[in-house]
């Protein structure tokens, strides 16, 4: 079953699969960001694949010159009982990707979390607000250049 998924994706969307890999039994597929919504919809609607559950969605800061950020989708098929990991690389200058909220409504809060923590913008998201941090917070805490101890005075304290 597993090696068929990248093949199937490539035959449906030629050239969309950049890399596919397997480590400790987890299948990873790197795809381009342009077609992410179409790819996700195809993965969900295809009768054989049927990835109908979005288990997890998160951002990653790889801290490298090219494709600094990554958005990682963990999908699950209730029918086949298997996982799939999709990865999309984003450049630092333009960390923008289309939202998959239209495919799985559960992606809503997970995308908000990735926006909150990494500053990745999800276009067409219905409600792209900060998930955990205050709305007027200027920094993105899970980026590697954000210090562990936080930034002094970044959250205003009560006046005397």
């Amino acid at each position, binding site marked *: 079953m597993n090696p068929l998924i990248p093949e199937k994706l490539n035959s449906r969307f030629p050239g969309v699969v950049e890399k596919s890999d397997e*480590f*400790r039994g*987890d299948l990873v597929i790197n795809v381009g960001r342009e077609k992410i919504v179409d790819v996700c919809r195809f993965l969900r609607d295809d009768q054989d694949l049927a990835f109908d559950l979005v288990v997890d969605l998160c951002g990653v800061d790889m801290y490298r010159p090219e494709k600094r950020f990554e958005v990682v989708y963990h999908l699950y098929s209730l029918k086949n009982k298997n*996982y799939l990991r999709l990865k999309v690389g984003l450049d630092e200058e333009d960390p923008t990707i289309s939202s998959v909220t239209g495919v799985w409504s559960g992606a809503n809060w997970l995308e908000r979390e990735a926006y909150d923590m990494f500053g990745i913008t999800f276009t067409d998201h219905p409600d792209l607000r900060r998930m955990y941090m205050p709305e007027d917070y200027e920094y993105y805490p899970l980026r590697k250049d954000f210090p562990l101890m936080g930034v002094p005075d970044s959250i205003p304290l009560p006046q005397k």
Partner: protein
Amino acid sequence: MPARTAEDSHKSQILTALEDQDTSIILDPLESEMILNMGPQHPATHGVLRILVRLDGETIIGCVPELGYLHRGYEKIAENCTYHEFIPHTDRLDYLSPLSNNVAYALAVEKLVGIEVPRRAQYIRVLCCEMARIASHLVAVGTMAMDVGALTALLWTFRERENLMDIYDVLTGARFTTSYTRIGGLSQDWTDRCTEMLREFLAKFDADLAEIEQLLYTNKIFIDRCENVGYISKEDAISLGMTGPILRAAGVPRDLRKDNPYLVYPELDFEVITFTESDALARFYVRMEEMKQSARILRQALDKLPTGPINANDTKRVLPKKERTYTRMEELIHDFMLINLGVDPPVGEVYQGTESSKGEFGFYIISDGTGQPWRMKIRSPSMVNLSAIPVMAKGAMVSDIVVIIGSIDPVMGEADK
């Protein structure tokens, strides 16, 4: 409808006639909507959840949950400590079932590093997970009953839970912050005293559950408050990424212990409980029945518990016994290296999900080959499950929202990370 309009205008004529300088009559008090702020400090929100509710009279038009009041940045902390150092932090995620968090984390790191723990340790981990599930579900059913006014059930469930806490105490040395697992094994062995205490607990657990059932299942107030409240369709539940009792109450038999087995669950016999009503009452029933299944697993695991070591035989990556580090050179070196530099995993990334009491609880770890993870994502079931509140609460009464939160059973330590 002209007849009704005539009647209405007649009524309003009478009412306007009653107005004077001291009395003013508003004909439709419900025409204006009201925003109600619930929480973050509200006893029924099970922690620090804040919900903004838009009301028309007592009917909920829409609501927006706000999270983040307990955000401690565990994912950032994880990037800055070794794999062993993060184990105590996992206790503080879902603080109602610390033992199963410990197990979930250890499984994820072991999958990354490539260690298989001995069978005895796997059985003890199953015992831990199921004790944690019972303890967590007891709180869930007790607090949900309390939220609708049945206080006795809460006292009874906490009495049962206390027995499990005593077992935790003997097994791990702590009642709540257990930090029990280690990478490649466990901190302490299961003892005969634990077996004795657990058998004692299981011997009367079914009767105690039946007592709670007797109290609630025939209670008209309880049933009326929970039935048809917080309905979510099966399609919505799947699309929203629900897991655990909420998804099973919607009729989807998804249980990672059966579907993507880990530990020794394939050797144990149990059923996946599903209901189709998908309301608060169905979720309550799912939790009650799951506790019976967990008790069944505990009995089998106790019977089958093998003898043998509890730590994997991999001295370079599994912490040695503390006593041996005082007297032996090799163990001292390994202890020093593991504590200061951490286990050396390969470059790679893994995701390991486990079926916790709330749903799918998983860790996604990206390793760059050093002793600290490059990135760790915690897949917390409570956070995803909470995102269903707007769907469940739409059109419900304002008093139903406490039932809906109770039926989701969120733990904010895990939802806010």
